[in-house]
């Protein structure tokens, strides 16, 4: 098991390094510096500013410095647009927000999705099954950027039940719509995957044996069927995680929650490269770590996997 984790780590670290290098090269190749403006600065001033941010250094020195800063000190450097803030400050402000509603959405998607899928599989071809299948098809064609305005229209403008945006320290009325908008499509996918894999597992012989020896259905599902049925769901969690992080950009811009998505889009429009890079690398690192966790969990559940 230990060597398995070590081997996965040996792949994960270079992947992250490649991501850092790609984004750095992209930034380096960008036409025009971040300080080019409509009103050109006097060359001395520009040179001073570039020296302050280290932009006058040769490419190799810059990339090594940058990677060293990221790896050794978790330091993503200064923001190019906000003179008084570093990329770290911006991430420290936005990331807890994203993490809060992201984690809640993830849990909601997993718990509701698995329950719905299992219920649909047990009561196959009843109204419950059709409802679950219907919901999962409907949610598939309503991505979060379609879902969010519909929710806003219904709950804020028509019914007036929920605040239309803001964060307010994460009080629950401010959380409801972001969580629904972010989790629904993943919940639907998880429900669909759970349903089909559960149906498959329920037809295997050992389930028949468990039923034949008189175990109650609840125990058959929980003790015997659940674990093997979870494998396909588990391998979907990686893509779902990436999708949710990406979706947070939409959530932030719709509900003004102030997560990292807001900063990412804003810096995309103001060409604040260092902030964009910092967030890209952070998201990449999270994704890679999460995929590693999923792999380990997968190996733990499925004894057929060789470490």
């Amino acid at each position: 098991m230990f060597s398995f984790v070590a081997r996965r780590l040996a792949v994960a670290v270079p992947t992250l390094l490649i991501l850092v290098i790609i984004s750095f090269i992209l930034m380096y190749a960008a036409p025009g510096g971040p300080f080019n403006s409509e009103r050109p600065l006097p060359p001395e001033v520009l040179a001073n500013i570039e020296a302050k941010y280290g932009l006058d250094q040769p490419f190799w020195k810059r990339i090594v410095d940058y990677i060293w800063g990221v790896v050794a000190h978790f330091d993503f450097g200064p923001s190019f647009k906000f003179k008084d803030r570093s990329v770290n400050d911006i991430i420290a402000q936005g990331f807890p927000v994203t993490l809060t509603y992201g984690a809640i959405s993830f849990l909601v998607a997993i718990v509701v999705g698995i329950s719905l899928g299992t219920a649909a599989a047990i009561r196959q071809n009843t109204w419950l099954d059709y409802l679950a299948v219907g919901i999962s098809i409907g949610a598939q064609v309503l991505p979060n950027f379609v879902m969010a305005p519909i929710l806003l229209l219904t709950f804020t403008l028509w019914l007036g039940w929920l605040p239309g945006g803001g964060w307010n320290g994460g009080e629950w009325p401010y959380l409801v719509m972001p969580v629904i908008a972010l989790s629904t499509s993943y919940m639907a996918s998880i429900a669909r995957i759970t349903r089909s894999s559960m149906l498959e597992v329920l037809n295997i012989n050992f389930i028949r044996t468990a039923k034949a020896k008189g175990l109650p259905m609840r125990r058959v599902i929980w003790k015997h069927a659940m674990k093997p049925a979870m494998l396909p769901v588990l391998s979907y969690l990686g893509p779902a995680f990436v999708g949710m992080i990406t979706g947070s950009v939409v959530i932030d811009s719709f509900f003004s929650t102030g997560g990292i998505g807001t900063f990412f889009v804003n810096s995309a429009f103001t060409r604040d490269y260092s902030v964009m890079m910092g967030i890209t690398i952070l998201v990449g690192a999270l994704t890679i770590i999460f995929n590693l966790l999923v792999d380990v969990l997968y190996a733990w559940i499925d004894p057929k996997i060789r470490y």
Partner: protein
Amino acid sequence: MLPNPAKLEGVIDAMAVAEVKGRSLWADARTRFMRNKAAVVSLVLLALVAAFALFGGFFAAWERDFVDFSLTGRNAHMGVPSIETGHFFGTDNNGRDLYARVVQGTGISLMVGIVGALVAVVVGTLYGATAGYFGGRLDGVMMRVVDVLMSIPFMFVLILMLVIFGRSILMLFLGIGLISWLDMARIARGQTLSIKNKEFVEVAVATGVHPIKIILRHIVPNLLGIVIVYATLLVPNMIIFESFISFLGLGVQEPNTSLGALINEGAGTMQYGTLWQIAFPLFFFVVTIFAFFFVGDGLRDALDPKDR
């Protein structure tokens, strides 16, 4: 005892007919597909949407970039959809004809989806087939590359690229092309692994056919079924992907538009009561995505030998 000669003749006749009308794998699949009502209806809907995108422009009464200044600021009661004014779908905030814009948006969204799927089919299939056929170390390296690329959050890298190299449709196509083939490569490789030990490939190897020719002539045609299925399911994902970027304002740029950009605009003006601005693009978006998913499902049932 001989069976009734008349009956025997009938059987022979029937066999002759059956021989003449031998059913190919594809004909078989078509029959199965046609039996799936949802898929057939979806196919018709898709044809209608495509026809709308291709020929809808001829019926537009207004140019899509013509700004009617007399409507500015009075959109909520002056820009209502109506046949008389020629604004079939109403107008947008700037007084532009929404019908013409939806026609263009649908076209661009469809194009993005199809380009993404095409790249996936060509690059992904060849890549996967090559890795699967040669196996060994080459396979290991090629698939590791796919793994590494897959665990990069591409949406963020693509937005970074769009910002740095400028927002253009070309850049968008490039970005979509870069990621769309990854899944396809995995699927094609898996399928190739099960095909490459079949007799017909062994015969080809034994008779000294060049490996590249084996891949192109013997492996790829046998992958087509599963590739078509996944390509169909990929199209809606690509459309959603593009809409996402256009929704953020980073994709297709004015005066051009896509469904995602139109939905974004419509969502922004929803509270002023101009619901048609979101309703029409959303309608075409949902119908297209739905239809592609159902056609893909139908094709999977028709072409996937597992579920027969």
